[in-house]
């Protein structure tokens, strides 16, 4: 293997901007307050009001402390390319960047050429320290990206379609010809997941420890990797697809289908949570913004659409075709088709994405997958001739949280973190469109009123139950047939009464509503003032 470094021309990297302290702090505090508190003045309950005031005060303090901590503990701010005069940022080539950056950064520009073992696909661990590369023709490799050393390389001698790291670099799953397999870092096969079938695409949900896969027959599988249990197995019914992406915000798995639809799934429901028609052509690629609110899709009809997932509306439609899409930590969107990579970003205050950088590989290289390396300004490109890596200034999050993802993790820390993350493992039912709704009131169940037939049948059943009741034998002519018949009638009437009353009530309410509506509808505006005011 060879690491090829490119040389380049100078460009300015913008220094971190300094905002006014107070305003910035306020903005940060607002961020950490996570929304407004309730209007406590309106509360009737004095005690509750007191308690809530105390809580709110504590929240305020906590937010302020957090904002200050953020200010002092996260000093580095990401920069980005800034053009001067008639320069354009997308004209800047990798060579010119390499000339400007330090040695350790310039080491991240290289091409690894492996022509034999087919188009490659990549996956990074969440810290960005390790990379798994899988060649179509059975080449699996785990690389330490810090010192660019190959940890393990194996040849499985069958088609490998996808590779994905599990919770840490010790395990990775590879979708092979017939089944997906799980290997450890030493290349030892640990599991063969036969239930998944011939998997086209794999995804791992880190917080839930679920391995999601979509197979040739369009079946979506969720497997818990801690217990080994199959959590979900759904037929999408929308045909074969290899476009799958997990929303990092809520763990919802999105699939792109040939009908131009994107479906979103959770492991506890057999029907998709959301099904949206995104493109008129087949969906070619799919990516989620790390904050989970923005989704980018590309269709075969040469359109890239950016969606707001809170409203399920298109934010922006970009022209062009993309075989693969990826969002960086900072929200840059990389799209690639053929051997051409384009990165767009929304640096201006407007939400629209515009061209930021471009890069073209050697002619003939077919890019299979783009993946931003976490916490680095690096974009990994997996293509038909191996993989490459280029610098995209401003793409990575500059401050890493060592409790979340530590690129400099020691083995002891890794073990510690594994245990911790297992303890914090989320059950699969916590996957939902809006996970912030957990703990709130149950949404009012749309309990449908029983239909008329149901009501009638219920009433009939009640009547039948009463009818069959034996009547006590009484003396002195009180159990005469006439008397007993009357009694029976009485009982039936009594059982029917509540049903009838309810029915009447409903009807009444309905008629009143209707009347109201009709009144409102009837009178023209000019005459409405003469309408009888209802005494309320």
């Amino acid at each position, binding site marked *: 293997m060879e690491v090829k470094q490119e040389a380049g021309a100078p460009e300015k990297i913008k220094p971190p901007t300094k905002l006014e302290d107070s305003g910035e702090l306020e903005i940060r505090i607002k961020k950490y307050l996570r929304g407004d508190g309730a209007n406590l003045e309106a509360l009737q309950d004095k005690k509750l009001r007191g308690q809530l005031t105390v809580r709110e005060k504590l929240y305020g303090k906590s937010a302020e402390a957090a904002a200050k901590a953020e200010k002092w503990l996260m000093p580095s701010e990401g920069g980005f390319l800034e053009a001067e005069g008639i320069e354009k940022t997308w004209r800047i080539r990798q060579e010119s960047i390499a000339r400007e950056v330090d040695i350790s950064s310039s080491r991240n520009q290289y091409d690894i050429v492996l022509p034999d073992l087919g188009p490659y696909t990549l996956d990074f661990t969440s810290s960005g320290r390790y990379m798994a590369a899988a060649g179509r023709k059975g080449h699996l490799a785990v690389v330490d990206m810090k010192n660019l050393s190959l940890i393990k390389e194996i040849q499985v001698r069958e088609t490998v379609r996808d590779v994905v790291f599990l919770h840490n670099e010790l395990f990775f799953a590879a979708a092979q010809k017939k089944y997906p397999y799980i290997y450890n870092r030493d290349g030892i096969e640990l599991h063969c997941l036969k239930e998944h079938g011939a998997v086209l695409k794999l995804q791992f949900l880190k917080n839930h420890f679920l391995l999601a896969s979509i197979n040739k027959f369009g079946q979506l599988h969720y497997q818990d990797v801690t217990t080994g249990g199959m959590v979900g197995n759904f037929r999408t019914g929308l045909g074969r697809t290899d476009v799958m992406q997990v929303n990092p915000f809520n763990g919802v798995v999105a699939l792109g289908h040939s009908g131009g639809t994107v479906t979103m799934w959770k492991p506890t429901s057999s029907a998709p*949570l*959301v099904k949206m028609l995104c493109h008129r052509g087949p969906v070619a690629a799919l990516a989620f913004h790390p904050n989970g609110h923005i989704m980018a899709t590309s269709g075969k009809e040469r359109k890239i659409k950016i969606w707001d997932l809170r409203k399920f509306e298109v934010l922006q439609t970009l022209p062009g075709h993309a075989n693969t899409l990826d969002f960086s930590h900072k929200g840059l969107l990389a799209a690639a088709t053929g051997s051409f990579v384009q990165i767009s970003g929304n640096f201006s205050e407007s939400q629209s994405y515009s061209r930021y950088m471009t890069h073209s590989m*050697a002619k003939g290289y077919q890019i299979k997958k783009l993946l931003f390396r976490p916490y680095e300004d690096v974009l990994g490109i997996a293509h038909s001739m191996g993989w490459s890596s280029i610098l995209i200034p401003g793409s990575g999050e500059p401050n890493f949280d060592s409790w979340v993802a530590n690129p400099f993790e020691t083995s002891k820390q890794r073990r510690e973190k594994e245990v911790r993350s297992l303890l914090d493992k989320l059950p699969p039912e916590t996957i939902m469109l809006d996970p912030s709704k957990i703990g709130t009131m149950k949404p009012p169940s749309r309990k449908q009123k029983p239909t008329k037939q149901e009501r009638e049948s219920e009433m009939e059943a009640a009547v039948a139950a009463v009818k069959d009741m034996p009547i006590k034998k009484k003396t002195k002519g009180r159990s005469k047939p006439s008397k007993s018949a009357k009694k029976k009638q009485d009982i039936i009437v009594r059982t029917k009464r509540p049903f009838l009353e309810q029915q009447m009530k409903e009807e009444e309410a309905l008629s009143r509503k209707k009347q109201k509506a009709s009144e409102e509808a009837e009178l023209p505006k000019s005459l409405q003032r003469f309408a009888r005011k209802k005494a309320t």
Partner: protein
Amino acid sequence: MAEKKSKSGDSGRPNNKRNQSMSKTLPKDKNNNKKLKNKRKRTGPRLPNALRKEVERLNPLRPSDSEGEEIDSDEAEFGNGRDVYEYEEEAPPEESRRNRRFDPVDNLEYELPDEFEDEIVSSDDEEDVGRSDDANLSDAEAEDDEGRHIRMLQEITGMPSETFQGKKRKKGDLVVSEAYPESEFNPSHNVGDGDGRITIQDLLDPLHGKAGYSKLRKRTSQMERKPMSIQAPLPKPYREKLERKVAYEQSKKDITKWEPLVKRNREAPTIYFDQDLDLGFSTVGAIASEFEPRTEFEKKIASLVHDDKVKEAHEKDGARLLELNKTSIEDEKERRDRIAKMRSLLFRHEIKQKHIKKIKSKTYHRLMKKDRAKATSAQIEMDPEAAKEQAMKQEFKRAEERMTLKHKNSSKWAKRILQRGLTTQDEGTRAAISEQLHQHALLTRKMNSMKDGSSSEESSDEYDDENSVGSDQDKENLLAKAKEKTLKVFEEDDEVPNTGVLSLPFMARGLKKKRDAAVEEARLALQEYESSSKQMEDSQGIEDTKENSMKGRMVFGAVQLQAPGANNVSKSEKTYDDSDGEDDMETRENIDGGSHSGNDMQNQVQNGSTVLHPDSETHDYSVFKSFDDIVKNPGAKTTYEVAIFASDGWRKMKGSNKETAMKKKQDLLEPASQKKDLEEASGDSDTESEGQMVDGILSSGPTQSYELPSQADLIRHAFAGDDVEEDFDKHKMEILNEENPEPEKPIVLPGWGQWTHIQQKKGLPSWMLREHENAKKTRQDALKKRKDAHLKNVIISEKVDKKAEKLHTKSLPFPFTSKDVFEQSIRMPIGPEFNPATAIGALNRPEVVKKSGTIIKPIKFEEVNPHEKAEYGNEQKHLSKKKEVGKSSKKNRAKAKN
């Protein structure tokens, strides 16, 4: 008489005082006095009360009485009396006292108060003057009497009158008698009236001058002045109720002072109950400073440690310590010698032990064991402690045996033997079994004597030694032994006696027959042993093969394939070694025996590995070589090969650089052919994958070329999903209908009302139509309420996830009444992952902070400003309080939670 006068003089002053205090009564009294003077003249015999009242009724009041004096009953009565008996001028003789026929003392008790009063009143009236008048009057009389008396005394004693006078004066202070001489000027109307009433004044007067008198008098005068009717006391329950009410008011007032304190505690988010606990010493130094040497040794040490010299040396540079440390050469020598001796002793002991350890003789060990047992038994006899220990050991063993039933034929070996039947076993086995049972019996028997136990223990130990190796090993051992024995039998059989009875031909024949039978039996037995041993071997072999087969799937590269093979070989060798070690015969038999499945397998694998080994090596080499090639020729990279992804298969187009490609192909083809061999050699499990792989590599051949898809294909591909939107709409409608089914259209039941054609004309009944309309409307409403109602190309599932329901709260928690307030109150996470460390404590602090073991004392009163805004920065307050507590000794500041 003199006594009377003195009395009046004495009593005059307090009365006077009284009158000064109540000015209002003064004039009345004045009148009284005057009247009294008049009355004196008009007194008559006293009428009974009833009669007098009657008279009073008959006679209207005189104007003189219209002064409103009716109130004073005494006065009124008096007045009436006067009116009635006005005609009677003469006083009774005993009253008038003039003639002195009656003893004045008789009346004293009755008269005194009234007279006093009168006298007082008079004195009051004219203040000093009046009194002096009175005094003059009385004095004149008294002097008369005195004069006579003195004269009489003078005459008797012959002493001057002055002496007696002085004496009398003195006496007069003490003697109390009738206040006044009875005369018309000094009337004692009471007596005269016969009215024996006692006024309060009468009762008060004797108390005159005593403590509390003035108070009493005041009260009485007050009562006189403001006379009011006293009501009858209330019934008890009412009284008590009132009392309770008053008490309640009082206690209410008392308790309100606690209110701000309690309020503060109620409103506080956290209440702290901690005292400063005295944990004693906190540092080692503190403990050391308190140390006092008690024992002799400690004292000695202390004396050395606290030696002045040493201390001084320490305080200085410590150089003097060296001087203090001096030892003599002799001492050092002695020490060295001692140590050398000890070392040599140790060494010898060690050598000895090593030697002993090396001894392998069984007899030696047996003897040693016996010795040890003896020693222990001796010790048991000597030492009760050791005996106890031994007994304990024995008991433990017994318990263990009872628990595990180790010797109750529960071992694998014993079970097998029993399964086969004891009768078919040979002597040794049976003996062993019975021995074991005996062992069990011994162990489980209740121990009475120690000796028995010890012997059994010994035997069991021996037995254990034999059996401890493990059941498998056991079996082998046994088999080996049995074989040896049978072989011995063979050998013995060979020697035939030449002389004696046995050498006789028939005997010899009989013997031979017997021997033959025995030999036959022995052979059979031998065969059995062999078969059994073989079985054991086989089972091991099967296990091995199993392991191998398990590893069979893990074939990633040839290197890995080779590894298990080698492993296998080594393993098989190992097993052979083992068996060799056991018995030569066995291996021989094993090899000769018919069933060699395991062995065969191993051979096979060995072959396989030998076949594979070179191949894999070369293959690896080639792969790496190809990589190397690529790395070496980076220049060719740009125009190397173009691979295009089409559907699933991979095809390679030839690049311009044919030479390198060809080279590579050659490289690749070589391993491919080798791989074929490999495929054949290896098991059938991997065939599919390898086939694919071979395909993949073969497909890289130069003959294939990429065909561009036709234009029609491309167009079809591009517009494959043209009617996508319609499809989607349809699908959406389907889903909506599924979730909110469309109401059924009202239909006419066949036959109902049709024969009259009325219904046909009228159409459907109105109620049906109405119902249908309602249903439609509800459906529309439901559809409108959907989240995706306004989103044309989106379907958001409204299905309720039952599993996720548990993540929501079912109902509003108690104090909350509004959903929004509740949800906003839980919007902030409070865990350590989401908050800075400084805020977590406050966010998660419990309502009550209390160290375990702290006694919660009842609430203590302290001044709290009720208008003070409750402090919520409780922590600081708490801290400050803590400091305060620390300063102000051990004052308990436990706040009670109310």
